[in-house]
């Protein structure tokens, strides 16, 4: 870590903070245009209880004051407020708990994406124009167009219905979340479309790299195939793949919203949709702020990995 890298990371963190605050401020201000909007759907709300509700959440204050309260709460205490529908539920601990659930699924999806994608891409490139290549390439050409929620539905149908005898529906009907056997189907559904994309990209860049002189030299020196492929060729072939890691992580986060709803996973994505449908504005803003920060940090992480692979890039 040079001083340049540290100051670069510092700058990026400031930019992420600004972006996060900016977009969530816009959402906050838009959603607070109509005071008490969140309570309007409830049946038989007397004016007194509505006023009490508004007062409890500070929604009877002027918009500017509300905004300042929210802003200082988020920035100084990391406090995202209280649920409008379930009074007493504070949002920050709720979201941190849910984020850990989402992280499990996201992590395995990322493993599927990168592991399977790299494997297919490398094998296809090394066996170019053989049946292995054709199978892998056609699978990825089809795979990256099939949205993850479609794969999830197919996965449910296969694992939960046709192969019920084997799976016993463990991934779905068991209450609670966190067992390892619940992970594979959602993680595969979430990861496969991106895995196809990574495979296509890896194949193309691998084909380019294995034709370069330095790889030919490595072969000529009599190095073992594993060393040539993994240490010489792959390292350079990875560079274009790393460039799409940022959008890829964003895609997995976005995709998790729908996957979590299909499989009933109690994570951030499910909370996001549930709170939107329930008009629990405080949670909507909270989850959104969380997501914006998360995507920013993921992108930063990718940019930090980049110079490790390609020493020509320095910050």
């Amino acid at each position, binding site marked *: 870590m040079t001083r340049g890298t540290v100051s670069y990371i510092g700058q990026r963190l400031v*930019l*992420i903070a600004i*972006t996060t605050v*900016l*977009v969530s401020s816009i*959402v906050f201000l*838009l*959603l607070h*245009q*109509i005071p008490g*909007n969140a309570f309007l759907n409830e049946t038989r709300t007397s004016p007194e209880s509505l006023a009490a509700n508004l007062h409890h959440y500070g929604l009877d204050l002027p918009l500017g004051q509300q905004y300042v309260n929210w802003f200082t709460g988020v920035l100084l205490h990391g406090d995202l407020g209280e649920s409008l529908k379930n009074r007493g539920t504070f949002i920050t601990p709720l979201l941190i708990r849910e984020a850990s659930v989402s992280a499990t699924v996201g992590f395995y999806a990322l493993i599927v994406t990168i592991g399977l994608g790299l494997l297919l891409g490398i094998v296809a490139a090394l066996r170019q124009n053989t049946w292995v290549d054709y199978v892998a390439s056609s699978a990825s*050409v*089809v795979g*990256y*167009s*099939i*949205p993850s*929620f*479609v794969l999830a*539905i*197919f996965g*449910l*149908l296969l694992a*939960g*219905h046709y192969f019920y005898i084997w799976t016993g529906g463990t991934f779905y009907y068991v209450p609670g979340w966190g067992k390892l056997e619940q992970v594979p189907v959602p993680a595969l559904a979430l990861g496969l479309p991106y895995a196809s994309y990574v495979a296509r990209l890896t194949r193309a860049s691998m084909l380019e790299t294995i034709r370069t002189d330095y790889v030919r030299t490595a072969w000529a020196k009599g190095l073992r195939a594993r060393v040539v492929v993994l240490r010489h060729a792959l390292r350079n072939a990875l560079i274009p793949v790393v460039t799409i890691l940022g959008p890829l992580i*964003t895609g997995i*986060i*976005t995709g998790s*919203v*729908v996957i979590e*709803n*299909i499989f009933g996973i109690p994570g951030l994505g499910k909370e*996001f*949709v549930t709170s*939107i*449908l329930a*008009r629990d*504005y405080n949670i*909507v803003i909270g989850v*959104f702020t969380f*997501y*914006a920060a998360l*995507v*920013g940090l993921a*992108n930063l992480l990718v940019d930090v990995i980049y110079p490790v692979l390609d020493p020509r890039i320095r910050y």
Partner: protein
Amino acid sequence: MAMAAVPEPDLVTAYEMPEQVSMLQDAWNRIRRNRLALVGAGIIAILFLTAIVATFWTPYPVWLQAVGPTYQGPSAAHPLGLDQAGRDILSRIMGGASITVQVGIGSAIIVSLIGIPLGLLAGFYRGAVDTTISFFINIWYGIPDLLVALILVFVLSDALHLIPRGIFVIVLAFSLTRWMDVARLVRGQALALREREFVEAARMSGARDLRIIFSHIFPNALGPIIVQATFAIPAAVLFEAFLSFLGLGLPSPMPSWGAMANDGYHGLDFAPHIALAPTIALSITLMAFNWLGDGLRDAFDPRMRR
């Protein structure tokens, strides 16, 4: 004089001039040899045809319930079966094609309308204009675009009641969060093209900035713009399906493929056809647009020429 001895007309006959081909013709020649792209174009043609037919005629009205037993599988009268409310799925798939085409084309147009001028301005004027526009592009890249679009649809239609929930608000939300792909690309093109000789020549002959931008730089950047706009279509279609699947997109009787997939997902174990029909239609559509987009990209990018 020695100069006069040079036989001028012979130059033309002595060297065989390369055939003059316009950019679009050249692209067409190359895409004709790309089988996947042609298959994609064929599927898209069928989709458009279905969409046009569906605006005038479907076997049953898309909203009509109880045309037969609910959850009934495919039969002669209803080739794709009936859904949980006894609606004819074939009719709804056709209606969904029409929605898909409107969302896709509408988004491609609006994304281009926002992205092209911004990109051209940034690339042509550079300096402060570029810095400002690029700053917004970079900020926009750091946010989860689909989730912002989702929030936008929710805020505009449900919270503020500004625009009724429908195709337009979805297209608008998508375009407002996805314009920077086009803008960034056009900016790069404009940055490169503004240094070229024909732009210099235009400036020498007294053309004003706007004329240089729109009749010299823009036409030469058209190829990559078409490619980028083509890729915006499947992204928009997917976004609409994603929203409608979650119940946040088009309102209920509208035959969105995403909403139909959600209908079917609840009865997956005993009536899988309800979910399978729209998801397969959606996947094939996305695949076709991606294949065509890849083909167009290869056709318009001379470096990829084999």
